[in-house]
């Protein structure tokens, strides 16, 4: 097995009054695009800043390309950081900004000029080289910040919510651009965001953080389809969380009581005993809604209809009072009204049993 490009082992970080990171372990392969995703204050920036060398961990190690870099200052590490607000040098032109790291490395003029041109082309700002940062738009400034960080050819590029200050359209465009650049360079990117869509769109792998810990790692698909906790299923995408109790087993399947209703789910883990409480996470787009009298499924009454344009989100209330959301195509909702009696069902495989049912 090849050694990971970045190896984070048992990382702890305490600030005076609070623990920002609590036993974080994370391995990142060369060329991988990994997102650190989590709510504000969960420790994403702290983790990134420890990798960059701006913070020292209370304990634990950071290895890059097999080498222990814990304790080295930022200027002695093979990493570069793209800051949330660019942090461009306001008194230097775009070219001088991009060339700053190269100047410190004493590159000669002609080689430096060629490298700056290459970087400007990479971020599609060829004609902007002589501008000052104050003459750039938000999106252009972030591209310069990216070019400046990439110019020194770091082993690992760290990005701390670099797109969060941009408006939605530009952000979506930059997400794709950034991803394309990462693929072209086959560079290792660690990308911090609190925006789940952004993480899903861009990443090879997502590490979800909460309260200073990594609570789940996996590909976007794994995380979306198989969240391992109420927190993750709720944080990533919209979901219905149905809390229920295990009331029996039947041929390798669990029988779950959700209010009055009984449903069966595949038992993919050994630890499900009778009497334990779980939550079932069901994505709205997997919920089917049947109006035929006597159709199989959970009986419910339509209580909300929200028109979203590309789809319609319908809320149906179970006998026990719980609301379940279903995303339907517009034509599927014809004749549907508040008060209509329906039967709700979903593919068993689309539902995920998650721990921590208390909400």
């Amino acid at each position, binding site marked *: 097995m090849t050694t990971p490009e970045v190896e984070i082992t048992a990382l702890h970080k305490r600030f005076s009054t609070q623990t920002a990171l609590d036993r974080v372990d994370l391995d990142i392969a060369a060329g991988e695009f990994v997102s650190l995703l989590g709510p504000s204050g969960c420790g994403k920036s702290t983790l990134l800043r420890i990798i960059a060398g701006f913070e020292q961990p209370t304990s634990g190690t950071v290895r890059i390309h097999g080498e222990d870099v814990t304790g080295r200052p*930022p*200027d002695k590490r093979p*990493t570069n950081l793209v800051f949330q*607000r660019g942090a*461009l040098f306001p008194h230097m032109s775009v070219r001088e900004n991009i060339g700053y*790291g190269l100047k*410190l490395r004493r590159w000669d003029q002609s080689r430096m000029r060629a490298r700056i041109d290459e970087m400007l082309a990479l971020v599609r700002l060829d004609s902007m080289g002589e501008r000052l940062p104050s003459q750039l738009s938000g999106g252009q400034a972030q591209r310069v910040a990216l070019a400046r*960080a990439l110019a*020194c050819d770091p082993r690992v590029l760290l990005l701390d919510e670099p797109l969060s200050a941009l408006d939605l359209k530009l952000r979506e465009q930059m997400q794709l651009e950034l991803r394309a650049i990462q693929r072209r360079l086959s560079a290792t990117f660690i990308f911090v965001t609190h925006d789940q869509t952004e993480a899903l769109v861009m990443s090879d792998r997502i590490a979800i953080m909460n309260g200073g810990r990594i609570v789940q790692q996996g590909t976007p698909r794994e995380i979306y389809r198989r969240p391992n906790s109420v927190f993750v299923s709720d944080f990533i995408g919209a979901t219905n969380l149905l809390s229920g109790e295990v009331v029996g087993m039947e041929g390798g399947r669990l029988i779950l009581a959700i209010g009055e209703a009984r449903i069966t789910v595949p038992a993919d883990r050994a630890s499900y005993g009778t009497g334990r409480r779980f939550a079932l996470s069901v994505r709205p787009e997997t919920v089917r809604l049947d109006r035929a009298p006597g159709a199989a499924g959970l009986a419910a009454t339509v209580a909300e209809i929200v028109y979203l344009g590309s789809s319609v989100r319908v809320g149906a209330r179970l006998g026990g009072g719980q609301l379940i959301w279903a995303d339907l195509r517009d034509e599927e909702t014809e004749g549907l009204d508040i008060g209509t009696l329906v039967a709700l069902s979903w593919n068993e495989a689309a539902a995920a049993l998650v721990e921590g049912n208390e909400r």
Partner: protein
Amino acid sequence: MVRWNRVLPAGFVTLVVLYLYAPIAVIVIFSFTTSPRLSMPIEGFTLDWYVSALSNPLIATALRNSLVLAATSAVLSGVMGVAFSFGLVAVRRAWLRSTLLAGSLLPAIVPLLVIGIALAVLFRAVGMPQGLLNAAIGHMIVSLPFVVLTMNARLESFDFSTLEAARDLGASAWQAFRDITFPLIRPSVIGAMLLAAALSLDEFVVTWFNIGNQQSVPVLVWGLMRRGVDPSINAIATILLALLVCLVVASNRLGRRNGAS
């Protein structure tokens, strides 16, 4: 018809401007007129008062002392104020930071008389004879709050992540200071120093209590005035005025350029 709602404000503004500038205008005009007395009408134009002022060894010495005091106060209170302000923005606890800031600005509203006497008493207690050095220390106390005020305003809007960016790109702490911090704060530092020099040039109260037998321009002028009005005082005042205007204008322009960037 007379439009009173226009004439009245205009008249009032004119009066206030006259009130503010008439005394200054008088002194500047009489520094260039032949009549040895402050009398109207103006008789003729001359530069004699400047020649006699500058060739008077007392005045020349006082002028030199004033410039030395201004330069010392500008450089030392500049360095101290900048260092203090950097320390201040690094303080994490907000209440401590605002307390320290308020504390450092307080001398600006303590009566100069109190500062002057307190320093004189202190210097005597430690056995330091009165002189230029004592006056210079006093001027630094007077200027320091203004330097801190200027620098604090600059540093509050300073994007410290640019320094981290520089370190991240491979700069040592010193290189980051040389390439990023210093060029960005230079206009404010120079502006603050010019302001300190301006405050020092016309400082009288603290100087008078501490300078001993030496003379600065304001102290000398005060002494000359007691013996009767010598027209070269007009010339000295005008020189002082010109210096101050230059310093304050330059200080403001630097401050503005800084805000724009």
